Protein backbone atom coordinates (compact mmCIF):
# COMPACT_ATOMS: atom_id res chain seq x y z
CA UNK A 1 0.00 0.00 0.00
CA UNK A 2 2.83 2.35 0.87
CA UNK A 3 4.45 1.68 -2.45
CA UNK A 4 1.42 2.81 -4.37
CA UNK A 5 0.85 5.74 -2.01
CA UNK A 6 4.38 7.07 -2.56
CA UNK A 7 4.41 6.32 -6.27
CA UNK A 8 1.15 8.21 -6.64
CA UNK A 9 2.51 11.13 -4.67
CA UNK A 10 6.07 11.75 -5.81
CA UNK A 11 6.01 15.18 -4.20
CA UNK A 12 6.01 13.46 -0.80
CA UNK A 13 9.35 11.81 -1.54
CA UNK A 14 10.74 15.09 -2.80
CA UNK A 15 9.62 16.86 0.30
CA UNK A 16 11.07 14.28 2.69
CA UNK A 17 14.36 14.28 0.75
CA UNK A 18 14.66 18.07 0.80
CA UNK A 19 13.73 18.23 4.47
CA UNK A 20 16.37 15.57 5.18
CA UNK A 21 19.03 17.54 3.31
CA UNK A 22 18.07 20.74 5.09
CA UNK A 23 18.17 19.00 8.46
CA UNK A 24 21.58 17.53 7.69
CA UNK A 25 22.95 20.91 6.59
CA UNK A 26 21.70 22.64 9.73
CA UNK A 27 23.05 19.83 11.94
CA UNK A 28 26.49 19.99 10.37
CA UNK A 29 26.53 23.78 10.60
CA UNK A 30 25.34 23.95 14.20
CA UNK A 31 27.45 24.88 17.22
CA UNK A 32 26.58 21.56 18.81
CA UNK A 33 28.26 19.77 15.89
CA UNK A 34 31.31 21.95 16.27
CA UNK A 35 31.46 23.94 13.06
CA UNK A 36 29.42 26.82 14.47
CA UNK A 37 28.42 28.12 11.04
CA UNK A 38 24.87 28.53 12.30
CA UNK A 39 24.33 30.21 15.65
CA UNK A 40 22.32 28.48 18.36
CA UNK A 41 19.66 31.17 18.19
CA UNK A 42 19.39 30.55 14.45
CA UNK A 43 18.99 26.82 15.08
CA UNK A 44 16.16 27.68 17.47
CA UNK A 45 14.54 29.95 14.90
CA UNK A 46 14.75 27.23 12.25
CA UNK A 47 13.41 24.61 14.67
CA UNK A 48 10.50 26.87 15.55
CA UNK A 49 9.89 27.47 11.86
CA UNK A 50 9.60 23.72 11.30
CA UNK A 51 6.92 23.60 14.01
CA UNK A 52 5.08 26.44 12.28
CA UNK A 53 5.33 24.47 9.04
CA UNK A 54 3.73 21.52 10.83
CA UNK A 55 0.74 23.53 12.02
CA UNK A 56 0.57 25.11 8.56
CA UNK A 57 0.10 21.73 6.87
CA UNK A 58 -2.57 20.94 9.47
CA UNK A 59 -4.26 24.22 8.55
CA UNK A 60 -3.94 23.35 4.88
CA UNK A 61 -5.68 20.02 5.42
CA UNK A 62 -8.55 21.55 7.36
CA UNK A 63 -8.93 24.60 5.12
CA UNK A 64 -7.28 23.89 1.78
CA UNK A 65 -8.56 20.33 1.48
CA UNK A 66 -11.68 20.18 3.64
CA UNK A 67 -12.81 23.77 3.14
CA UNK A 68 -13.20 24.60 6.85
CA UNK A 69 -11.63 28.02 7.33
CA UNK A 70 -10.72 27.59 10.97
CA UNK A 71 -9.43 30.77 12.54
CA UNK A 72 -8.72 29.01 15.80
CA UNK A 73 -6.08 26.41 15.14
CA UNK A 74 -3.44 28.41 16.97
CA UNK A 75 -5.47 27.80 20.11
CA UNK A 76 -4.66 24.10 19.82
CA UNK A 77 -1.02 24.99 19.19
CA UNK A 78 -1.01 27.11 22.34
CA UNK A 79 -2.70 24.41 24.41
CA UNK A 80 0.02 21.96 23.34
CA UNK A 81 2.59 24.52 24.45
CA UNK A 82 0.92 25.09 27.80
CA UNK A 83 0.59 21.35 28.40
CA UNK A 84 4.28 20.66 27.97
CA UNK A 85 5.20 24.00 29.59
CA UNK A 86 3.47 22.98 32.83
CA UNK A 87 5.68 19.93 33.21
CA UNK A 88 8.83 21.84 32.19
CA UNK A 89 8.13 24.56 34.71
CA UNK A 90 7.07 22.23 37.50
CA UNK A 91 9.95 19.82 37.14
CA UNK A 92 12.54 22.58 36.90
CA UNK A 93 11.14 24.48 39.88
CA UNK A 94 11.01 21.24 41.85
CA UNK A 95 14.69 20.70 41.09
CA UNK A 96 15.59 24.21 42.25
CA UNK A 97 13.51 23.93 45.42
CA UNK A 98 14.91 20.53 46.31
CA UNK A 99 18.49 21.68 45.92
CA UNK A 100 17.90 24.80 48.00
CA UNK A 101 16.24 22.78 50.77
CA UNK A 102 18.77 19.98 50.76
CA UNK A 103 21.26 21.88 52.94
CA UNK A 104 18.89 21.98 55.91
CA UNK A 105 19.43 19.81 58.98
CA UNK A 106 15.82 18.66 59.25
CA UNK A 107 14.53 17.10 55.99
CA UNK A 108 11.55 19.00 54.60
CA UNK A 109 8.16 17.32 54.48
CA UNK A 110 6.55 16.75 51.12
CA UNK A 111 3.95 19.38 52.03
CA UNK A 112 6.68 21.95 52.60
CA UNK A 113 8.29 21.07 49.29
CA UNK A 114 4.99 21.30 47.47
CA UNK A 115 4.27 24.67 49.10
CA UNK A 116 7.68 25.96 48.15
CA UNK A 117 7.22 24.90 44.52
CA UNK A 118 3.76 26.45 44.46
CA UNK A 119 5.13 29.65 45.89
CA UNK A 120 7.85 29.80 43.28
CA UNK A 121 5.50 29.20 40.36
CA UNK A 122 2.41 31.10 41.44
CA UNK A 123 4.01 33.89 43.48
CA UNK A 124 3.70 36.24 40.50
CA UNK A 125 -0.08 35.96 40.58
CA UNK A 126 -0.27 36.21 44.37
CA UNK A 127 -0.99 32.60 45.08
CA UNK A 128 0.85 29.52 46.23
CA UNK A 129 -1.79 26.81 45.80
CA UNK A 130 -1.69 24.39 42.95
CA UNK A 131 -4.80 24.77 40.80
CA UNK A 132 -6.52 21.55 39.69
CA UNK A 133 -5.14 22.09 36.21
CA UNK A 134 -1.71 21.17 37.52
CA UNK A 135 -2.79 17.81 38.90
CA UNK A 136 -0.57 15.87 36.49
CA UNK A 137 2.15 18.51 36.09
CA UNK A 138 4.71 16.35 37.93
CA UNK A 139 4.28 13.52 35.46
CA UNK A 140 5.94 13.97 32.06
CA UNK A 141 4.09 11.08 30.50
CA UNK A 142 0.67 12.39 31.54
CA UNK A 143 1.48 15.93 30.41
CA UNK A 144 2.61 14.58 27.03
CA UNK A 145 -0.71 12.79 26.87
CA UNK A 146 -2.40 16.14 27.59
CA UNK A 147 -0.63 17.60 24.55
CA UNK A 148 -2.75 15.26 22.46
CA UNK A 149 -5.86 14.79 24.59
CA UNK A 150 -6.76 18.39 25.46
CA UNK A 151 -6.63 19.88 21.92
CA UNK A 152 -8.25 16.72 20.58
CA UNK A 153 -11.07 16.80 23.10
CA UNK A 154 -11.68 20.53 22.68
CA UNK A 155 -11.78 20.15 18.89
CA UNK A 156 -14.05 17.14 19.19
CA UNK A 157 -16.61 18.87 21.39
CA UNK A 158 -16.44 22.20 19.58
CA UNK A 159 -16.54 20.55 16.15
CA UNK A 160 -19.37 18.22 17.11
CA UNK A 161 -21.53 21.13 18.23
CA UNK A 162 -20.67 23.30 15.22
CA UNK A 163 -20.84 20.68 12.46
CA UNK A 164 -23.93 19.00 13.84
CA UNK A 165 -25.73 22.36 13.66
CA UNK A 166 -24.38 22.71 10.11
CA UNK A 167 -22.55 25.91 10.83
CA UNK A 168 -20.42 26.54 7.77
CA UNK A 169 -18.49 29.21 5.94
CA UNK A 170 -17.85 32.56 7.51
CA UNK A 171 -20.05 31.74 10.52
CA UNK A 172 -17.84 28.83 11.41
CA UNK A 173 -14.74 30.99 10.98
CA UNK A 174 -16.20 33.51 13.40
CA UNK A 175 -17.04 30.75 15.89
CA UNK A 176 -13.52 29.35 15.81
CA UNK A 177 -12.18 32.85 16.24
CA UNK A 178 -14.44 33.37 19.23
CA UNK A 179 -13.17 30.09 20.69
CA UNK A 180 -9.52 31.13 20.55
CA UNK A 181 -10.35 34.62 21.81
CA UNK A 182 -12.28 33.21 24.76
CA UNK A 183 -9.44 30.86 25.59
CA UNK A 184 -6.92 33.66 25.38
CA UNK A 185 -9.00 35.98 27.59
CA UNK A 186 -9.48 33.23 30.14
CA UNK A 187 -5.74 32.54 30.23
CA UNK A 188 -5.07 36.25 30.79
CA UNK A 189 -6.87 36.04 34.12
CA UNK A 190 -4.60 35.59 37.10
CA UNK A 191 -6.89 32.98 38.62
CA UNK A 192 -6.98 30.84 35.48
CA UNK A 193 -4.29 28.77 37.18
CA UNK A 194 -1.79 29.28 34.39
CA UNK A 195 -0.10 32.44 35.71
CA UNK A 196 -2.24 34.94 33.82
CA UNK A 197 -0.43 37.24 31.46
CA UNK A 198 2.95 36.07 32.81
CA UNK A 199 2.43 32.79 31.05
CA UNK A 200 4.93 30.01 31.53
CA UNK A 201 8.61 30.82 31.20
CA UNK A 202 12.03 29.27 31.37
CA UNK A 203 10.82 26.50 29.09
CA UNK A 204 14.14 26.31 27.26
CA UNK A 205 15.68 24.69 30.37
CA UNK A 206 14.90 21.04 30.12
CA UNK A 207 14.78 19.26 33.52
CA UNK A 208 17.22 16.38 33.63
CA UNK A 209 19.47 18.03 31.08
CA UNK A 210 20.85 20.81 33.27
CA UNK A 211 24.36 19.78 32.23
CA UNK A 212 23.62 20.08 28.53
CA UNK A 213 24.36 23.31 26.70
CA UNK A 214 21.62 25.26 24.94
CA UNK A 215 23.44 24.46 21.70
CA UNK A 216 22.86 20.73 22.25
CA UNK A 217 19.28 21.17 23.47
CA UNK A 218 18.30 23.41 20.59
CA UNK A 219 19.78 21.02 18.06
CA UNK A 220 17.87 18.14 19.69
CA UNK A 221 14.63 20.10 19.44
CA UNK A 222 15.42 21.09 15.89
CA UNK A 223 15.86 17.43 14.96
CA UNK A 224 12.70 16.51 16.84
CA UNK A 225 10.77 19.21 15.00
CA UNK A 226 12.11 18.01 11.65
CA UNK A 227 11.08 14.46 12.45
CA UNK A 228 7.62 15.60 13.55
CA UNK A 229 7.21 17.62 10.36
CA UNK A 230 8.28 14.64 8.23
CA UNK A 231 5.87 12.29 10.02
CA UNK A 232 3.07 14.85 9.98
CA UNK A 233 3.60 15.41 6.28
CA UNK A 234 3.46 11.68 5.58
CA UNK A 235 0.32 11.29 7.70
CA UNK A 236 -1.52 14.18 6.06
CA UNK A 237 -0.37 13.25 2.57
CA UNK A 238 -1.77 9.78 3.19
CA UNK A 239 -5.05 11.13 4.61
CA UNK A 240 -5.69 13.49 1.70
CA UNK A 241 -4.76 10.93 -0.92
CA UNK A 242 -7.00 8.07 -1.94
CA UNK A 243 -10.67 7.84 -1.20
CA UNK A 244 -10.54 9.87 2.01
CA UNK A 245 -8.99 12.72 0.03
CA UNK A 246 -11.75 12.40 -2.55
CA UNK A 247 -14.48 12.66 0.04
CA UNK A 248 -12.80 15.47 1.96
CA UNK A 249 -12.22 17.55 -1.16
CA UNK A 250 -15.74 16.72 -2.26
CA UNK A 251 -17.00 18.22 0.99
CA UNK A 252 -14.99 21.36 0.25
CA UNK A 253 -16.40 21.69 -3.27
CA UNK A 254 -19.99 20.56 -2.76
CA UNK A 255 -21.03 19.48 0.69
CA UNK A 256 -24.65 18.73 -0.24
CA UNK A 257 -23.62 16.41 -3.08
CA UNK A 258 -21.45 14.37 -0.72
CA UNK A 259 -24.37 14.11 1.65
CA UNK A 260 -26.68 12.85 -1.10
CA UNK A 261 -24.06 10.25 -1.96
CA UNK A 262 -24.66 8.84 1.51
CA UNK A 263 -21.65 10.17 3.40
CA UNK A 264 -22.22 11.66 6.83
CA UNK A 265 -20.39 14.90 6.21
CA UNK A 266 -20.36 15.87 9.91
CA UNK A 267 -18.30 12.81 10.81
CA UNK A 268 -15.71 13.57 8.17
CA UNK A 269 -15.41 17.20 9.15
CA UNK A 270 -15.09 16.23 12.78
CA UNK A 271 -12.38 13.71 11.95
CA UNK A 272 -10.35 16.24 9.95
CA UNK A 273 -10.90 19.05 12.47
CA UNK A 274 -9.87 16.90 15.43
CA UNK A 275 -6.90 15.26 13.71
CA UNK A 276 -5.49 18.61 12.64
CA UNK A 277 -6.09 20.01 16.13
CA UNK A 278 -4.08 17.17 17.66
CA UNK A 279 -1.20 17.70 15.23
CA UNK A 280 -1.35 21.43 15.99
CA UNK A 281 -1.05 20.62 19.68
CA UNK A 282 2.03 18.47 19.03
CA UNK A 283 3.55 21.27 16.94
CA UNK A 284 2.97 23.69 19.84
CA UNK A 285 4.54 21.30 22.34
CA UNK A 286 7.69 21.25 20.21
CA UNK A 287 7.64 24.99 19.52
CA UNK A 288 7.45 26.51 22.98
CA UNK A 289 10.43 24.75 24.57
CA UNK A 290 12.41 26.36 21.75
CA UNK A 291 10.75 29.73 22.24
CA UNK A 292 11.32 29.50 26.01
CA UNK A 293 8.10 31.27 26.96
CA UNK A 294 4.40 31.02 26.31
CA UNK A 295 1.79 33.56 27.31
CA UNK A 296 -1.89 34.09 26.49
CA UNK A 297 -1.04 36.57 23.72
CA UNK A 298 0.15 33.58 21.70
CA UNK A 299 -3.44 32.38 21.50
CA UNK A 300 -4.80 35.72 20.33
CA UNK A 301 -7.00 35.49 17.22
CA UNK A 302 -4.40 37.29 15.13
CA UNK A 303 -2.06 34.28 15.35
CA UNK A 304 -4.64 32.02 13.74
CA UNK A 305 -5.27 34.62 11.05
CA UNK A 306 -1.55 34.71 10.27
CA UNK A 307 -1.74 30.96 9.92
CA UNK A 308 -4.43 31.32 7.27
CA UNK A 309 -2.33 34.00 5.53
CA UNK A 310 0.70 31.69 5.41
CA UNK A 311 -1.33 28.91 3.87
CA UNK A 312 -2.96 31.27 1.38
CA UNK A 313 0.36 32.74 0.30
CA UNK A 314 1.96 29.30 0.12
CA UNK A 315 -0.93 27.86 -1.82
CA UNK A 316 -3.99 26.10 -0.49
CA UNK A 317 -4.70 22.48 -1.27
CA UNK A 318 -1.08 21.42 -1.60
CA UNK A 319 0.86 20.46 1.49
CA UNK A 320 4.26 21.70 0.31
CA UNK A 321 2.60 25.03 -0.45
CA UNK A 322 1.68 25.40 3.21
CA UNK A 323 5.26 24.57 4.23
CA UNK A 324 6.66 27.12 1.79
CA UNK A 325 4.18 29.76 2.94
CA UNK A 326 4.81 29.24 6.65
CA UNK A 327 8.60 29.11 6.31
CA UNK A 328 8.83 31.98 3.87
CA UNK A 329 6.49 34.38 5.62
CA UNK A 330 7.51 33.63 9.21
CA UNK A 331 11.26 33.87 8.45
CA UNK A 332 10.68 37.03 6.44
CA UNK A 333 8.60 38.37 9.30
CA UNK A 334 11.37 37.85 11.83
CA UNK A 335 13.86 39.41 9.41
CA UNK A 336 11.73 42.50 8.91
CA UNK A 337 10.57 42.94 12.48
CA UNK A 338 13.93 41.97 13.94
CA UNK A 339 15.57 44.96 12.30
CA UNK A 340 17.29 42.85 9.66
CA UNK A 341 15.80 44.76 6.78
CA UNK A 342 17.46 48.12 6.09
CA UNK A 343 15.27 51.17 6.52
CA UNK A 344 14.46 53.00 3.31
CA UNK A 345 15.05 56.75 3.43
CA UNK A 346 12.77 58.53 1.02
CA UNK A 347 14.00 61.96 2.04
CA UNK A 348 10.67 63.15 3.34
CA UNK A 349 9.88 59.89 5.10
CA UNK A 350 11.84 56.92 6.34
CA UNK A 351 10.24 53.52 5.95
CA UNK A 352 10.96 51.54 9.08
CA UNK A 353 10.19 47.90 8.35
CA UNK A 354 9.26 47.18 11.94
CA UNK A 355 6.26 49.45 11.31
CA UNK A 356 5.63 48.72 7.65
CA UNK A 357 6.13 44.96 7.53
CA UNK A 358 2.52 44.27 8.39
CA UNK A 359 1.41 46.61 5.63
CA UNK A 360 3.65 44.77 3.19
CA UNK A 361 2.28 41.43 4.40
CA UNK A 362 -1.28 42.67 4.07
CA UNK A 363 -0.69 43.96 0.55
CA UNK A 364 0.94 40.71 -0.51
CA UNK A 365 -1.97 38.74 0.96
CA UNK A 366 -4.42 40.80 -1.05
CA UNK A 367 -2.29 40.44 -4.19
CA UNK A 368 -1.97 36.67 -3.78
CA UNK A 369 -5.71 36.33 -3.25
CA UNK A 370 -6.48 38.44 -6.31
CA UNK A 371 -3.79 37.43 -8.77
CA UNK A 372 -2.29 34.12 -7.61
CA UNK A 373 -5.09 32.21 -5.88
CA UNK A 374 -2.90 29.12 -5.99
CA UNK A 375 -0.11 30.90 -4.11
CA UNK A 376 3.59 30.17 -4.34
CA UNK A 377 2.89 26.42 -4.48
CA UNK A 378 0.86 27.08 -7.62
CA UNK A 379 4.01 28.37 -9.33
CA UNK A 380 5.62 25.00 -8.61
CA UNK A 381 2.74 23.19 -10.23
CA UNK A 382 3.10 25.41 -13.23
CA UNK A 383 6.84 24.74 -13.55
CA UNK A 384 6.67 21.01 -12.88
CA UNK A 385 3.93 20.05 -15.27
CA UNK A 386 3.56 22.31 -18.21
CA UNK A 387 -0.09 23.00 -18.95
CA UNK A 388 -1.29 20.59 -21.64
Amino acid sequence: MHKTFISQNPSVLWFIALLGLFTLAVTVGSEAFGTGLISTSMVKTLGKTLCLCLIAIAMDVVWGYCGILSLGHFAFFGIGGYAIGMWLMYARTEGIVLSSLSGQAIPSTSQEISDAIGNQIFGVVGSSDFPWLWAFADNLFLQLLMVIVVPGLLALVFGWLAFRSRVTGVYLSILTQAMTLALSLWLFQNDSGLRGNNGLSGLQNIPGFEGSSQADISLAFFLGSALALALGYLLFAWVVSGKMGSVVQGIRDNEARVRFLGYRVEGYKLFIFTLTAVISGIAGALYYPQAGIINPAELAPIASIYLAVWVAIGGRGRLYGAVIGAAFVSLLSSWFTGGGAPAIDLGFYTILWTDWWLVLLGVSFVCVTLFFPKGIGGLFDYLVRKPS
Partner: protein
Amino acid sequence: MNNTLLEVSGVSVSFDGFKAINSLSIQIAEPELRAIIGPNGAGKTTFMDIITGKTKPDEGVVIWGERNISLLGMSEADIANAGIGRKFQKPTVFEAQTVRQNLAMALKNPRGPLAVLLHRKTPANAARIEAIAEEIGLSDSLPRIAGELSHGQKQWLEIGMLLAQEPRLLLVDEPAAGMTVEEREKTTDILKRAAQTRAVVVVEHDMEFVRRLNCKVTVLHEGSVLAEGSLDHVTSNPTVIEVYLGRGHA
Protein backbone atom coordinates in the same frame (compact mmCIF):
# COMPACT_ATOMS: atom_id res chain seq x y z
CA MET B 1 -49.89 -2.50 -7.06
CA ASN B 2 -48.26 -4.50 -4.34
CA ASN B 3 -44.66 -3.71 -5.22
CA THR B 4 -44.88 -0.10 -4.09
CA LEU B 5 -41.41 1.18 -3.28
CA LEU B 6 -42.18 4.74 -2.31
CA GLU B 7 -45.43 6.11 -1.05
CA VAL B 8 -45.90 9.82 -0.56
CA SER B 9 -49.26 10.68 0.86
CA GLY B 10 -50.90 13.87 2.01
CA VAL B 11 -47.65 15.79 2.09
CA SER B 12 -47.77 19.56 2.44
CA VAL B 13 -45.04 22.08 2.87
CA SER B 14 -45.10 25.85 2.79
CA PHE B 15 -42.37 28.45 2.67
CA ASP B 16 -43.30 31.78 4.23
CA GLY B 17 -46.98 31.09 3.71
CA PHE B 18 -46.55 29.95 0.09
CA LYS B 19 -47.77 26.36 -0.29
CA ALA B 20 -45.09 24.75 -2.42
CA ILE B 21 -46.57 21.28 -1.93
CA ASN B 22 -50.27 20.88 -1.15
CA SER B 23 -51.42 17.46 0.12
CA LEU B 24 -49.45 15.65 -2.55
CA SER B 25 -49.81 11.89 -2.93
CA ILE B 26 -47.71 9.81 -5.31
CA GLN B 27 -46.82 6.12 -5.40
CA ILE B 28 -43.78 4.77 -7.17
CA ALA B 29 -43.42 1.05 -7.92
CA GLU B 30 -40.26 -1.01 -8.38
CA PRO B 31 -39.29 -1.25 -11.17
CA GLU B 32 -40.91 1.72 -12.81
CA LEU B 33 -40.04 4.66 -15.01
CA ARG B 34 -42.07 7.73 -14.14
CA ALA B 35 -41.96 11.23 -15.53
CA ILE B 36 -43.11 14.18 -13.49
CA ILE B 37 -43.98 17.28 -15.43
CA GLY B 38 -45.47 20.59 -14.49
CA PRO B 39 -45.00 24.31 -14.98
CA ASN B 40 -42.42 26.28 -13.02
CA GLY B 41 -43.28 26.44 -9.35
CA ALA B 42 -45.42 23.31 -9.50
CA GLY B 43 -43.34 21.84 -6.69
CA LYS B 44 -41.26 19.33 -8.66
CA THR B 45 -37.94 20.12 -7.05
CA THR B 46 -39.50 20.53 -3.61
CA PHE B 47 -40.99 17.06 -4.04
CA MET B 48 -37.47 15.69 -4.52
CA ASP B 49 -36.17 17.76 -1.61
CA ILE B 50 -38.75 16.15 0.66
CA ILE B 51 -37.96 12.59 -0.40
CA THR B 52 -34.19 13.09 -0.04
CA GLY B 53 -34.48 14.73 3.37
CA LYS B 54 -33.42 18.22 2.36
CA THR B 55 -36.79 19.71 3.25
CA LYS B 56 -39.03 18.59 6.09
CA PRO B 57 -42.74 18.64 5.23
CA ASP B 58 -45.30 20.29 7.52
CA GLU B 59 -47.61 17.29 7.31
CA GLY B 60 -48.03 13.97 5.54
CA VAL B 61 -46.05 10.74 5.35
CA VAL B 62 -43.31 9.39 3.15
CA ILE B 63 -43.05 5.60 3.37
CA TRP B 64 -40.19 3.59 1.89
CA GLY B 65 -39.59 -0.07 1.06
CA GLU B 66 -41.09 -3.38 2.16
CA ARG B 67 -40.64 -2.60 5.80
CA ASN B 68 -42.60 0.66 5.47
CA ILE B 69 -39.92 2.89 6.91
CA SER B 70 -40.73 6.57 7.26
CA LEU B 71 -38.13 8.71 5.51
CA LEU B 72 -39.13 11.78 7.47
CA GLY B 73 -36.66 12.47 10.23
CA MET B 74 -33.86 10.58 8.50
CA SER B 75 -30.74 12.50 7.47
CA GLU B 76 -29.80 13.00 3.81
CA ALA B 77 -26.97 10.51 4.17
CA ASP B 78 -29.21 7.85 5.77
CA ILE B 79 -31.81 8.26 3.04
CA ALA B 80 -29.12 7.95 0.38
CA ASN B 81 -27.84 4.79 2.04
CA ALA B 82 -31.37 3.41 2.24
CA GLY B 83 -31.32 3.36 -1.56
CA ILE B 84 -32.38 6.72 -2.93
CA GLY B 85 -30.06 8.50 -5.34
CA ARG B 86 -30.58 12.01 -6.59
CA LYS B 87 -29.37 13.91 -9.62
CA PHE B 88 -29.52 17.65 -9.35
CA GLN B 89 -30.85 20.03 -11.95
CA LYS B 90 -27.46 21.59 -12.57
CA PRO B 91 -24.86 18.91 -13.12
CA THR B 92 -23.09 18.61 -9.78
CA VAL B 93 -20.01 16.48 -10.08
CA PHE B 94 -16.73 17.04 -8.28
CA GLU B 95 -15.02 19.10 -10.93
CA ALA B 96 -11.58 19.10 -9.34
CA GLN B 97 -11.42 15.30 -9.39
CA THR B 98 -11.16 12.74 -12.15
CA VAL B 99 -14.13 10.88 -13.58
CA ARG B 100 -12.77 7.71 -11.96
CA GLN B 101 -12.53 9.39 -8.54
CA ASN B 102 -16.06 10.71 -8.91
CA LEU B 103 -17.39 7.24 -9.63
CA ALA B 104 -15.24 5.61 -6.95
CA MET B 105 -16.66 7.97 -4.35
CA ALA B 106 -20.22 7.12 -5.38
CA LEU B 107 -19.63 3.36 -5.53
CA LYS B 108 -21.68 1.40 -3.02
CA ASN B 109 -19.18 0.68 -0.26
CA PRO B 110 -18.99 1.36 3.47
CA ARG B 111 -19.40 5.09 4.06
CA GLY B 112 -17.81 5.57 7.49
CA PRO B 113 -14.66 7.71 7.86
CA LEU B 114 -12.54 4.82 9.11
CA ALA B 115 -13.59 2.46 6.31
CA VAL B 116 -12.94 5.20 3.77
CA LEU B 117 -9.56 6.08 5.27
CA LEU B 118 -8.41 2.46 5.10
CA HIS B 119 -10.08 1.84 1.75
CA ARG B 120 -7.99 -0.04 -0.79
CA LYS B 121 -8.58 -0.22 -4.48
CA THR B 122 -9.84 -3.67 -5.45
CA PRO B 123 -10.15 -5.27 -8.88
CA ALA B 124 -13.86 -5.76 -8.17
CA ASN B 125 -14.41 -2.06 -7.60
CA ALA B 126 -12.31 -1.17 -10.63
CA ALA B 127 -14.44 -3.50 -12.74
CA ARG B 128 -17.64 -1.88 -11.46
CA ILE B 129 -16.28 1.55 -12.32
CA GLU B 130 -15.37 0.36 -15.81
CA ALA B 131 -18.84 -1.11 -16.29
CA ILE B 132 -20.58 2.08 -15.23
CA ALA B 133 -18.28 4.21 -17.39
CA GLU B 134 -19.19 1.96 -20.30
CA GLU B 135 -22.88 2.37 -19.54
CA ILE B 136 -22.68 6.18 -19.55
CA GLY B 137 -20.28 6.31 -22.47
CA LEU B 138 -17.34 7.77 -20.56
CA SER B 139 -14.94 4.81 -20.73
CA ASP B 140 -12.26 6.86 -22.47
CA SER B 141 -12.69 9.76 -20.07
CA LEU B 142 -12.01 7.93 -16.78
CA PRO B 143 -8.63 9.64 -16.14
CA ARG B 144 -9.93 13.06 -17.15
CA ILE B 145 -10.69 15.83 -14.67
CA ALA B 146 -14.46 16.08 -14.42
CA GLY B 147 -14.34 19.87 -14.81
CA GLU B 148 -13.07 19.41 -18.39
CA LEU B 149 -16.10 17.39 -19.47
CA SER B 150 -18.80 18.87 -21.68
CA HIS B 151 -22.12 19.76 -20.14
CA GLY B 152 -23.75 16.58 -21.45
CA GLN B 153 -20.89 14.40 -20.24
CA LYS B 154 -21.18 15.91 -16.77
CA GLN B 155 -24.88 15.04 -16.75
CA TRP B 156 -24.03 11.47 -17.67
CA LEU B 157 -21.28 11.31 -15.09
CA GLU B 158 -23.76 12.36 -12.47
CA ILE B 159 -26.21 9.70 -13.65
CA GLY B 160 -23.29 7.26 -13.52
CA MET B 161 -22.61 8.28 -9.95
CA LEU B 162 -26.23 7.54 -9.14
CA LEU B 163 -25.96 4.12 -10.74
CA ALA B 164 -22.74 3.49 -8.79
CA GLN B 165 -24.67 4.01 -5.57
CA GLU B 166 -26.86 1.09 -6.65
CA PRO B 167 -30.01 2.81 -5.47
CA ARG B 168 -33.47 1.29 -5.72
CA LEU B 169 -34.92 4.68 -6.57
CA LEU B 170 -33.31 7.26 -8.81
CA LEU B 171 -34.58 10.82 -8.69
CA VAL B 172 -33.43 12.66 -11.79
CA ASP B 173 -34.03 16.39 -12.07
CA GLU B 174 -34.12 17.73 -15.65
CA PRO B 175 -31.46 15.46 -17.12
CA ALA B 176 -31.91 16.77 -20.65
CA ALA B 177 -31.51 20.47 -19.89
CA GLY B 178 -28.94 22.02 -22.19
CA MET B 179 -28.34 18.84 -24.17
CA THR B 180 -28.16 18.38 -27.91
CA VAL B 181 -30.69 16.12 -29.63
CA GLU B 182 -28.14 13.33 -29.87
CA GLU B 183 -27.20 13.64 -26.22
CA ARG B 184 -30.87 13.52 -25.27
CA GLU B 185 -31.36 10.25 -27.08
CA LYS B 186 -28.46 8.73 -25.29
CA THR B 187 -29.74 10.02 -21.93
CA THR B 188 -33.15 8.49 -22.63
CA ASP B 189 -31.50 5.15 -23.33
CA ILE B 190 -29.48 5.24 -20.12
CA LEU B 191 -32.57 6.07 -18.04
CA LYS B 192 -34.73 3.45 -19.74
CA ARG B 193 -32.14 0.76 -19.14
CA ALA B 194 -31.75 1.83 -15.51
CA ALA B 195 -35.52 1.62 -15.05
CA GLN B 196 -35.59 -2.05 -16.04
CA THR B 197 -34.35 -3.09 -12.62
CA ARG B 198 -35.21 -0.14 -10.40
CA ALA B 199 -37.51 2.80 -9.97
CA VAL B 200 -36.56 5.94 -11.86
CA VAL B 201 -38.39 9.24 -11.43
CA VAL B 202 -37.57 11.90 -13.99
CA VAL B 203 -38.60 15.51 -13.54
CA GLU B 204 -38.62 17.21 -16.90
CA HIS B 205 -39.89 20.29 -18.71
CA ASP B 206 -39.25 19.03 -22.18
CA MET B 207 -42.30 17.25 -23.64
CA GLU B 208 -40.33 15.69 -26.47
CA PHE B 209 -37.98 14.11 -23.98
CA VAL B 210 -40.87 12.81 -21.88
CA ARG B 211 -42.50 11.38 -25.00
CA ARG B 212 -39.31 9.50 -25.78
CA LEU B 213 -39.22 8.04 -22.26
CA ASN B 214 -42.60 6.50 -23.08
CA CYS B 215 -43.75 5.96 -19.51
CA LYS B 216 -46.41 6.89 -17.00
CA VAL B 217 -46.59 10.63 -16.45
CA THR B 218 -47.64 12.60 -13.39
CA VAL B 219 -48.58 16.23 -13.87
CA LEU B 220 -47.98 18.49 -10.89
CA HIS B 221 -49.67 21.82 -10.51
CA GLU B 222 -49.50 24.16 -7.54
CA GLY B 223 -48.07 21.46 -5.36
CA SER B 224 -50.49 18.65 -6.01
CA VAL B 225 -51.21 16.00 -8.63
CA LEU B 226 -53.35 17.29 -11.46
CA ALA B 227 -53.40 14.22 -13.67
CA GLU B 228 -51.68 10.86 -14.00
CA GLY B 229 -51.41 8.34 -16.82
CA SER B 230 -49.86 7.98 -20.25
CA LEU B 231 -48.54 11.11 -21.90
CA ASP B 232 -51.35 11.05 -24.45
CA HIS B 233 -53.88 10.62 -21.68
CA VAL B 234 -52.67 13.55 -19.61
CA THR B 235 -52.07 15.86 -22.55
CA SER B 236 -55.65 15.40 -23.66
CA ASN B 237 -56.88 16.37 -20.21
CA PRO B 238 -58.48 19.85 -20.58
CA THR B 239 -57.25 21.11 -17.20
CA VAL B 240 -53.70 20.09 -18.02
CA ILE B 241 -53.92 21.85 -21.36
CA GLU B 242 -55.19 24.94 -19.63
CA VAL B 243 -52.65 25.21 -16.79
CA TYR B 244 -49.59 23.81 -18.44
CA LEU B 245 -49.63 23.27 -22.14
CA GLY B 246 -51.87 26.23 -22.76
CA ARG B 247 -49.64 28.53 -20.82
CA GLY B 248 -46.51 26.95 -22.22
CA HIS B 249 -47.68 27.42 -25.80
CA ALA B 250 -49.03 30.90 -25.31
